[in-house]
């Protein structure tokens, strides 16, 4: 796969020689930062007709395997049953920043993969035309077969070799959306069979000859270090082979995971707990609150909010707070590594292949081409697997013991050593004019930043509502609890804040929550159309039984517009989310079945946060360890969800994080409608 033989003018499609025979075409994805000579996806058409898409994405449930294959199949005109996707090992031939974050897979692949499919199809058609001595225009491709007007036909597999000797066409014509046969039609997941018979290989399922198993004891206080430890009792546990100190703690290596975990219990470790041993949820909340009276860094300013507030007919204010949240993917973190003197192989369920590769290079001192990262299925990621801490640990252990090793985090490790969705405190003030319409809004946020202020205020500072006087500022208040990406990132809390406060403004002005949103979204037609669709399908305004209420939650993130109406009941002190209607404009839909799955999924994820989730800190330690202390949504708590797509030919938006923000707000607002009580702190229960 390394011999690139031809390049097109624009340098994003190339053919290459392959030992396996057939046609191999390289593709350059949008947004990639690698040098122009490097490509990051390959399409292979084998002599046996099979089509394989090798691409540096990963599958964590979001359906990339299926939807990326659909993009290719649309233009390639191949038999759907012949197509499959592989996630090849990352190596130096590939570009930087490979991974799956920010719901970007479709957005970066939409055009390049269709172009690749079209180029390959044109080459296969040309190969057939040459063989038959006719013009390519007399041939057509359909269902992995090229035919001409005279009843001749040749399969793609039979043409692949000849096609590989042709130039990549300079002019590629893509179908219009009206011509789509695959895109926009529901397709079942290609990975479903293997995920129902036990064959799907997740990172944790990696098995290597001679592989040992490890668990790591880490300081329960964030930032703490090993002062000293006594491994003698641990080493006496049956099956324990070695105990080694690594940068994050002490690793116990055994012949199986259970024995390693038993050995870990027998470790005696003295910790230097460091500076954060006194941090608690109360001290964090107090630190946030201290900042509320001080101006923060301005993140958005429109008009003159202070003046508008001073002259307002009516003013209201509210403070909202959310806790830290764990990701809790069903597959606990794990990584399998084999470090040799001249080579390091990593098998990982990771959202960040390039970061994993860099981490392995850093620890081993090996060159890029000596480190290979194998991408396996992820049992959920939700942002957690964009970090590489667990990968580095496994590399350190394998390097120390000189053997292949699988590191497994117990559930308690996963929950107590996470990079959490940040806690946040936000204070809002709002002003209404004499007719009760919002004319000014200010918001001040105190929350730990990561990578700048954006994540602390997205969902507030970029609100779609046309409020003429707007002022948003923020404080970075970091007490040393690790924070990072969590499905929908800053929108996960800020959409709850903004949408709740908008409801409060509507209520204070005596307006219907739908009416206020309609008015403020007049200049955001895609958001408005999603809202109208959701409201109509939900029967907004129709009478409900006593104890029931409806609420709206809107979000505009990852390039998509999502409107939700939740209906809840509050009966005998028990909150139940009965029904959710979600309308989404995510641009051109690739796989409607996949969109529906992701909307459902994002809603379940958001409901866990709205109703249940809270990571609390005491003495610098996370107090939750397993699902009995950090509960998540169950089957009997899942509302009936209806998904409605707003027809759109706009460029595709993301979908994996589209519905998580809005559902939290929709439920909180529905709770108010049902009970008259505002939700200003999560979880609701």
């Amino acid at each position: 796969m390394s011999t690139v033989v031809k390049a097109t003018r624009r340098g994003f499609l190339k053919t290459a020689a392959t030992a396996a025979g057939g046609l191999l075409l390289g593709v350059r994805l949008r947004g990639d930062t690698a040098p122009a000579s490097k490509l990051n996806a390959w399409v292979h058409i084998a002599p046996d007709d099979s089509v394989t898409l090798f691409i540096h994405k990963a599958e964590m449930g979001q359906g990339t395997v299926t939807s990326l294959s659909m993009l290719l199949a649309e233009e390639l005109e191949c038999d759907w049953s012949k197509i499959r996707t592989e996630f090849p090992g990352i190596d130096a031939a590939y570009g930087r920043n490979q991974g799956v974050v920010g719901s970007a897979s479709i957005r970066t692949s939409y055009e390049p993969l269709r172009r690749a499919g079209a180029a390959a199809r044109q080459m296969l058609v040309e190969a057939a035309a040459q063989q038959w001595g006719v013009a390519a225009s007399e041939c057509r491709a359909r269902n992995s077969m090229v035919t001409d007007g005279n009843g001749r036909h040749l399969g793609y597999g039979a043409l692949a070799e000849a096609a590989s000797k042709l130039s990549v066409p300079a002019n590629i014509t893509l179908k219009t959306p009206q011509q789509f046969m695959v895109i926009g039609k529901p397709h079942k997941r290609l990975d479903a069979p293997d995920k129902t018979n036990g064959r799907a290989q997740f990172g944790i399922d990696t098995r290597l000859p001679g592989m040992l198993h490890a668990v790591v004891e880490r300081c329960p206080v964030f930032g703490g270090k090993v002062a000293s430890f006594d491994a003698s009792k641990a080493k006496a546990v049956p099956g324990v082979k070695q105990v080694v100190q690594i940068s994050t703690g002490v690793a116990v290596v055994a012949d199986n995971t259970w024995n390693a975990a038993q050995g870990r219990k027998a470790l005696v470790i003295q910790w230097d707990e460091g500076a954060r041993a006194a941090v608690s949820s109360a001290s964090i909340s107090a630190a946030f609150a201290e900042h509320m009276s001080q101006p923060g860094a301005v993140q958005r300013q429109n008009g003159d909010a202070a003046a508008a507030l001073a002259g307002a007919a009516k003013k209201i204010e509210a403070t909202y707070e959310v806790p830290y949240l764990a990701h809790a993917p069903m597959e606990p973190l794990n990584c399998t590594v084999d470090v040799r003197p001249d080579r390091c192989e990593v098998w990982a369920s990771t959202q960040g292949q390039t970061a994993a590769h860099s981490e392995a290079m850093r620890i081993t001192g090996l060159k890029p081409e000596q480190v290979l990262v194998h991408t396996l299925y992820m049992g959920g990621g939700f942002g957690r697997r964009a970090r590489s801490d667990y990968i580095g640990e496994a590399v350190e252990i394998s390097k120390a013991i000189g053997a292949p090793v699988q590191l497994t985090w117990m559930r308690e490790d996963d929950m107590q050593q996470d990079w959490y969705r940040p806690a946040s405190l936000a204070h809002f003030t709002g002003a209404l004019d004499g007719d009760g319409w919002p004319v000014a809004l200010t918001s001040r946020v105190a929350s730990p930043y990561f990578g700048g202020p954006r994540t602390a205020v997205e969902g507030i500072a970029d609100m779609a509502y046309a409020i003429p006087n707007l002022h948003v500022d923020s404080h970075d208040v970091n007490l040393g609890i690790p924070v990072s990406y969590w499905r929908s990132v800053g929108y996960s809390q800020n959409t709850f804040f903004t949408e709740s406060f908008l409801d409060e403004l509507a209520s204070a002005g005596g307006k219907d929550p739908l009416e206020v949103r309609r008015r403020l979204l007049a200049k955001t037609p895609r958001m408005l159309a999603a809202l109208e669709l959701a409201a109509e399908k939900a029967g907004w305004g129709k009478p409900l039984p006593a104890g029931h209420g409806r609420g709206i939650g809107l979000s505009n993130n990852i390039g998509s517009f999502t409107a939700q109406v939740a209906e809840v009941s509050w009966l005998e002190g028990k909150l139940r989310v009965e029904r959710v209607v979600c309308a989404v404009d995510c641009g051109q839909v690739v796989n409607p079945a996949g969109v529906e799955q992701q909307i459902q999924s994002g809603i379940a994820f958001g409901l866990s946060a709205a109703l249940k989730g809270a990571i609390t800190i005491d003495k610098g330690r996370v107090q939750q360890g397993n699902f009995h202390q950090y509960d998540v949504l169950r089957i009997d708590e899942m509302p009936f969800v209806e998904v409605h797509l707003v027809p759109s030919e706009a460029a595709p938006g993301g979908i994996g994080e589209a519905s998580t923000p809005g559902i939290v707000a929709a439920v909180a607002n529905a709770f108010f409608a049902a009970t008259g009580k505002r939700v200003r702190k999560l979880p609701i229960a």
Partner: protein
Amino acid sequence: MPAIRFTLNGKSQTVDVVPAMPLLWVLRDTLGLTGTKFGCGMALCGACTVHVNGQPIRSCSMPVSGVAGKNVATIEGLSAQGTHPVQRAWVEEDVPQCGYCQSGQIMTAAALLAKKSVPTDADIDEALHNNICRCGAYQAIRRACHRAAQYHAEANGFSRPAQDGGAE
């Protein structure tokens, strides 16, 4: 340590491990049957569900000594070709997302259907309440349970086929 014997997916199996070692780790680490998943280690999430003498149990919290002399069935043994009504229904309803919890969901659902051939929504809620799916595929799981019951009924309407793969 005395060897522990049990029947695994229809075949006799002997393991020589610490008797307190949970069945989950014997399956995954000793025998290399990785279809059964580790999720919580405390019988809280259901990812590790297998059948012991036809009953769904959490293998993470069952010492291997507890299955001595018993019949153990894992996802790999539910059917030879993935054709158990529950598996067919799961594919047809496009249930899995990340898929990690699905072995446990399927084993729990299969045990439910063996006990109650036409489960109600309430039956499904009760049986699957402790099977966590972080992807939230619950609505599809519910549909698939009903569809599996339908497949089961259709199969039984024509004949009484032999158990596929001898799971139970």
